[in-house]
């Protein structure tokens, strides 16, 4: 997809965005970033028309009036822009470093093209947690290294008794410099870096990257490639939803279900491996189509999928119908529809509050939107709702894969890429990853090199939801609540 590129002056930016958002239903301000520190770039999506607009706002200095004051969903992105470009959002209510910690030199901005126009005021990279004061209030620090096998991040709970008054989440430990690396490597090898942004989302990341490249090159992939991409995307969703539902069962102590789910996830990974040679389907989706496709495996895949569906059914039903499990999950970790709308929450968490936003309905990715299944929603916004949405999506993913397997047609599964990318272009890939709306934005310079590559992972929206959902709940509910959001640390830290 090629977004409409427009220049908007700094003074008019907020009012223009407000007007634009009011101009149609479901319109979204997805994220704020910059190309090289000389401007702000705002990406706006209009799902109903399937269109996107990228607005550039030239900046005179290294600060601007914070957009967070008008659009709450920008708060996390403005922190990232501050770290990566040194652009300070004046008036930001919680301006703290997100990605670069104390171990980085002060005033080091990895994505900035030139030095700062004037010296930054305060930048010792130290991090101050919000202090909750009062008699009997105490803090529990957790992480960055957690007890289980999980990515690192730091949680600071302020508690009164067993109640959590506030949770502050500090991330950035996994920052690997992906966005910069993507501008440094040869663009034909960039897919391997894009995929490594979050490898539990390897297919969705590879697909968003591929769509961005293909839109710049103006090429269409063969129908067979689109079909295989759809299968891969849904297989990834299936595997990850299975492990997440299994994780919920484990955290409740429902170990029969959790063991079965971890075994069944192994089955879905076997299907993924039969399709692509790799359990995570890494290297499968490439710009121009798919690689490593083996047609002789399709028969086996169909049979195994059927078996998996049959085996999943009783396990999921056992979990769904268990009254103890339902009571453990109901009314805990609730987020409201208003929060989802204000903070731009996406994916399962949004659909669990009756917000039926699913990019597969609107944006071209694989065989979507033609093949888009009905959106699974629930309305209570709690842990139970998120689990039920995941279970519903397990069913729809299996149905979609089944349908696509029946309609595989043709032999060619990739097209040749041009030698060079087109100059001065902007390409965009929007994909519904299993966590929600994933966006890859790619800009080329006058010689066709990638000059800026930005990734918006669904977790960057949703971390806020977790810290608000857990307020006024028991500390013992946190693991369950955390699992129900199933957020990515790596995808956020990049």
């Amino acid at each position, binding site marked *: 997809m090629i977004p409409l590129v427009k220049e908007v002056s700094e003074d008019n930016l907020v009012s223009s965005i407000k007007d634009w958002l009011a101009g149609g239903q479901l319109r979204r301000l997805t994220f704020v970033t910059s190309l090289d520190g000389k401007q702000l770039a705002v990406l706006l999506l209009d799902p109903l028309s399937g269109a996107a607009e990228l607005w550039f706002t030239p900046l005179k200095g290294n600060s601007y009036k914070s957009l967070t004051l008008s659009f709450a969903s920008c708060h996390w992105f403005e922190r990232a822009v501050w770290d990566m470009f040194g652009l300070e959002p004046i008036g930001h209510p919680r301006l703290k470093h997100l990605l670069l910690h104390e171990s980085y030199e002060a005033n080091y901005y990895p994505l900035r093209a030139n030095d700062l126009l004037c010296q930054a005021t305060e930048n010792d990279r130290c991090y101050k947690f919000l202090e909750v004061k009062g008699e009997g209030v105490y803090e529990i620090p957790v992480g960055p*290294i957690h007890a289980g096998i999980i990515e690192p991040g730091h949680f600071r709970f302020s508690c009164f008794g067993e109640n959590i008054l506030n949770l502050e989440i500090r991330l950035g*430990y996994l*920052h690997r410099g992906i966005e910069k*690396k993507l501008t440094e490597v040869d663009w034909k090898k960039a897919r391997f870096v894009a995929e490594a942004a979050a*490898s539990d989302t390897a297919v969705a990341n590879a697909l968003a990257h591929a769509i961005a490249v293909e839109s710049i090159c103006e090429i269409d992939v063969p129908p067979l490639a689109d079909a295989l991409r759809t299968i891969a995307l849904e297989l990834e969703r299936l595997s990850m939803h299975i492990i997440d539902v299994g994780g919920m069962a484990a955290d409740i102590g429902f170990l029969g279900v959790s063991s079965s789910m971890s075994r069944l996830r192994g089955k879905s*990974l*076997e299907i993924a491996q039969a399709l692509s040679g*790799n359990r995570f389907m890494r*290297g499968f989706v490439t710009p121009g189509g798919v690689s490593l496709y083996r047609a002789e495996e399709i028969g086996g895949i169909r049979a195994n999928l059927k078996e998996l569906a049959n085996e999943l059914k009783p396990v999921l039903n056992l979990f769904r119908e268990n009254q103890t499990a339902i009571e453990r999950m109901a009314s805990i970790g609730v987020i409201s529809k208003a929060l989802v709308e204000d903070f731009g929450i996406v994916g399962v968490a949004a659909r669990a509050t009756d917000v039926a936003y699913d990019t597969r309905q609107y944006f071209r990715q694989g065989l979507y939107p033609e093949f888009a299944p009905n959106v699974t929603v629930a309305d209570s916004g709690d842990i139970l709702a998120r689990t039920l949405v995941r279970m519903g999506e397990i069913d729809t993913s299996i149905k979609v894969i089944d349908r696509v397997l029946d309609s595989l047609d043709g032999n060619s599964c990739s097209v040749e890429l041009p030698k060079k990318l087109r100059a001065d272009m902007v390409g965009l890939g929007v994909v519904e990853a299993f966590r929600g709306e994933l966006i890859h934005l790619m800009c080329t310079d006058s010689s066709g090199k990638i000059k800026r590559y930005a990734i918006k992972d669904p977790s960057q929206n949703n971390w806020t939801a977790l810290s608000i959902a857990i307020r006024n709940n028991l500390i013992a509910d946190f693991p369950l609540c955390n699992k129900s959001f199933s957020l*990515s640390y790596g995808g956020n830290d990049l």
Partner: protein
Amino acid sequence: MESTARGLPKLTDSPCRGTSCNRCAEICPTNAINVFGSGDTTKVALDLGSCIGCSLCIDNCPTETIRENRSTELAVRRREHLLLINDHAVEKEFSKEEESPKTNPFGMSLSARVVSTGCSACDLEIGAAGNPIFDMERFGVRVVASPRHADALLVTGPVGKGMQMPLKRCYEAMTEPKSVVAVGTCAISGGVHKGSYTEANGVDSVLPVDVYIPGCPPHPWSIIDGVLKAMGKKR
């Protein structure tokens, strides 16, 4: 390894066309391949510690000098043993040097602590190694929640600047004797992140590593193989 899985590459005796072809080196996303010399003295050097298993080199080698390796027994004790050269003399010298650890305190069972510093694929595969299919626990391997309880530290990911201090502190909190296992290509060399400003160049640059498990991510069987090597149960 299951028949449908793509393995990592290996080198064969089949003569390579040398720098006149050079396709494998050009196409490799992590510059893990080096072709040098010409004619009869042509050599291919392949660093499995940088390889992310994309299999492009295997598919693009016209002389079958680079082939698929179906084995999951890939873990080694020394970093240089992951550097393959298609010259038998060198390989033999390596295998002679391969030795079991001097002391073998973890012979019967091992408590492992997992620290992730990467994209989560390796973490999921360590998790999978413990599931009912692979069942790592039947070899006496447990994953524990505290460094105080751990004999071995399994590290995944390239260890960027943000995780270097927490990782060191985790290691220091473990009691002797202890060992470190680098799980996956990122943990060995930085993988696709190598040379980034975040100094994400692998565990080696922060801690002494005892066992290296290549793969991106390594298959659960490979992880079990590597942990058994760390226990001294396998050579």
